[in-house]
C-alpha cells in the first residue's frame, strides 16, 4: 500500500449564519494516497465542497474549522502559518474551482494566467514562464496552443477553459490536486474527454487527486475510491467496484437504484428515494443519522446517535442496519 499524501481526520466545519453556527461538515475522515483518485460524492448541502475548501484553508469568511486535523506530509495544514499555507497552495496542493469560466480573470490572456503561478511562486519573469505554460497546455491536449495562449476567457469554450484550468493547476507540479465539480458545467462529449485527461495526468505524475462531484455515475468511471457524503457526514467509503456493486449504506444503494440504466422498461416507473435532502439549517441539530427521515431501513437507534463506522477490507459504512452484502 502506498503512502497517504493527505489524511483528514475528524474534520468539522461550521458556518456562521446570521445568529448561529451551523455545522456543514461533521467529523469527516478520509485519506488520499499517492497515485489514486478519491471521489467525494454528495448532493447539495452534503458538505463536499466545504470539505475541499477546508483542506486548502480557503473557507469563506464566515466559515471555521472547529475540530479535526488535515495531515499533508505529516504536517497539520490547519496549524500552518498563513504564509506557509500560501506557499504550499499552488505549489504542492493545487485547487481547480467550479465554473472554469468565472475562475479566470476576463481581462487577462489565458497564456499569462496559466504562467502566473510560476511568476508568483518561482519568481520567474513572464517571458521565461510562457514556454512552460505552452508546454503544459499542449500536455492537456490542446492542439492550437499559440491561439489559446493569446485568447481571452470569453473566446474559448468551457471544455477548453477547463483544460487551461488544469494546466494552471499542474504548472508547479503539485502532489495533490483537488478538483471541484470539474465536469458538471460541460457537455457530455467534453465531460468524457476531461475525465480521461484527469485520469491521464494523474497517472503520468502519480498524483493524489480529490475529485468532488454530485454524480456518482460519472466519477465511477475514473475514481479509484469513492467517499459518499450526506448531510455533512461521510456515510460510506470504499473502492469504486465495492461501492458500485456491493454498497452497504442505504443511501448509496438508493442512489444507484434510482439512476437510469440500460434494460429498464420504456417509460416504466423508476425506483426512487423518498423525501428531499435535508435543510442545512436543521441537519446539524440531528443527533442521529441525517439520512434517517428518508431511509427505508431506519431502526430506533438511528435517531439517537450517528452510527459508528464499520470496516471490512477498506470498505467502510456508517449504518446500524446496513444493506446485506450481495
Amino acid at each position: 500500500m502506498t503512502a497517504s499524501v493527505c489524511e483528514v481526520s475528524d474534520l468539522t466545519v461550521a458556518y456562521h449564519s446570521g445568529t448561529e453556527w451551523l455545522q456543514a461538515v461533521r467529523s469527516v475522515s478520509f485519506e488520499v494516497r499517492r497515485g489514486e483518485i478519491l471521489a467525494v460524492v454528495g448532493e447539495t448541502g452534503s458538505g463536499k465542497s466545504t470539505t475541499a475548501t477546508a483542506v486548502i484553508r480557503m473557507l469563506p469568511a464566515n466559515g471555521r474549522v472547529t475540530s479535526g486535523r488535515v495531515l499533508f506530509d505529516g504536517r497539520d495544514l490547519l496549524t500552518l502559518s498563513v504564509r506557509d499555507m500560501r506557499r504550499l497552495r499552488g505549489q504542492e496542493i493545487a485547487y481547480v474551482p467550479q465554473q472554469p469560466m468565472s475562475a479566470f480573470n476576463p481581462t487577462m490572456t489565458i497564456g499569462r494566467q496559466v504562467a502566473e503561478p510560476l511568476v508568483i511562486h518561482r519568481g520567474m519573469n513572464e517571458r521565461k514562464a510562457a514556454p512552460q505554460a505552452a508546454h503544459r497546455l499542449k500536455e492537456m491536449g490542446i492542439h492550437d496552443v499559440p491561439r489559446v495562449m493569446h485568447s481571452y476567457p470569453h473566446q474559448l469554450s468551457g471544455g477548453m477553459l477547463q483544460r487551461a484550468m488544469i494546466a494552471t493547476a499542474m504548472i508547479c507540479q503539485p502532489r495533490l490536486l483537488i478538483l471541484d465539480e470539474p465536469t458538471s458545467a460541460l457537455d457530455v462529449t467534453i465531460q468524457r474527454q476531461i475525465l480521461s485527461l484527469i485520469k491521464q495526468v494523474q497517472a503520468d505524475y502519480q498524483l493524489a487527486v480529490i475529485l468532488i462531484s454530485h454524480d456518482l455515475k460519472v466519477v465511477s468511471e475514473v475514481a479509484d475510491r469513492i467517499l459518499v457524503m450526506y448531510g455533512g457526514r461521510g456515510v460510506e467509503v470504499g473502492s469504486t467496484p465495492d461501492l458500485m456493486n456491493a454498497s452497504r449504506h442505504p443511501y448509496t444503494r438508493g442512489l444507484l437504484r434510482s439512476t437510469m440504466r440500460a434494460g429498464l422498461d420504456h417509460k416504466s416507473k423508476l425506483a426512487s428515494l423518498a423525501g428531499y435532502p435535508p435543510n442545512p439549517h436543521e441537519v446539524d441539530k440531528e443527533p442521529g443519522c441525517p439520512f434517517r427521515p428518508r431511509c427505508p431501513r431506519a431502526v430506533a437507534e438511528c435517531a439517537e446517535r450517528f452510527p459508528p463506522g464499520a470496516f471490512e477490507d477498506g470498505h467502510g459504512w456508517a449504518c446500524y442496519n446496513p444493506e446485506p452484502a450481495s
Partner: protein
Amino acid sequence: MAAPALEVHARAFQRASILDLARHWWPVALIAVWLLIVLVPGLLAPQDPLAVNTLNILAPPSGEHLFGTDHAGRDLWARCVWGVRYSLGISILIVVGAAAIGTVIGGVAGLFRGPVDALLMRTTDVFLAFPYLILAIAIASAVGPGLTTVVVALTAVWWPGYARMVRGQVLALKELPFVEGARAAGTSTLMILFRHLLPHLLPQLSARLSMDVGYAVLAMTGLSFLGLGAQPPTPELGTIIADAHSHLLSAWWYTTLPGLFVLAMVLSSMVVSDWLEARNKSQFS
C-alpha cells in the same frame, strides 16, 4: 455546493422583518422623526410661525424663544419646523412623483422596445439635458414664482433619471427565466411589469429615492433662496435663509438654525439611503 445552499436558506432568515427592525431601529427612527415633523409640525413647535411681534425682533435665543426670533419677531424654531414641513414634504412629493413617472415611462420603454422605446427615451434625453435652474426661471417668468413653479420645474428634470434606471433594470430583468414563465402562464405585459418586475426594482428604487430626497431639499431651498420658490412670509427654509442673510452679522442664530435643519435633512437622507443599500446587498447577493 454547501456554501450556496446555506446562502439560499439564509435569505429566509433575513426576511424575518421583526428581527430586522430590532437590529436597525435607528434609521427607522430617523425616518419616523422627520415624517412626524412633516405631518404634524405643531407638535414640536406650538408657536404660530406667522405671528408677528414687532416689539421683539431679532431677539437672541432665550427661555421664551429657544432659538430666538427673526426680523419680524416671529419665533424662529416654529418657522424652521414649519419650514421642514414645506421643504421636506414637498421634496418628497417631487421625488415620489418623479419616480412614479420615470418608472412607468422607463418600464414601458424597456418592456415594449422598438419605436415606443426610441420615442420615450429620446424624449427622456431632451428633459435630461435641461438644467433645472433655467427651467425654473423660465417657468417663473411665465407663471410667476411660487411653490408650484418649483414642483413643476424639479419634477420635470427629475423623472428622466428614474426612467433611465428603470429601463436598464427592466431590460436586464426581462431576460430572467421567471419573466418568460409568467408570459407562458398568460400574464399580460402590464401585469408582468407590476407583479413581477416592480418588486425586484423596489430595493434599488427605494435607495435612490431616499438619496434624491436630500438632493431635492437642496435644489428646492436653493430655488427659494433665489426667490423663485416659496414667497415670504411662507416659512420655507430657503426663503428664511434668504430673509436672514442680510442679518448675518447682527443675528447669528437667524441663518444658523435653518442652515442646520437643511444639513440635517440632507445627511439623514444619505444615511437612510446607505442603510437601504447595505440591506439590499445583504439580502440579494
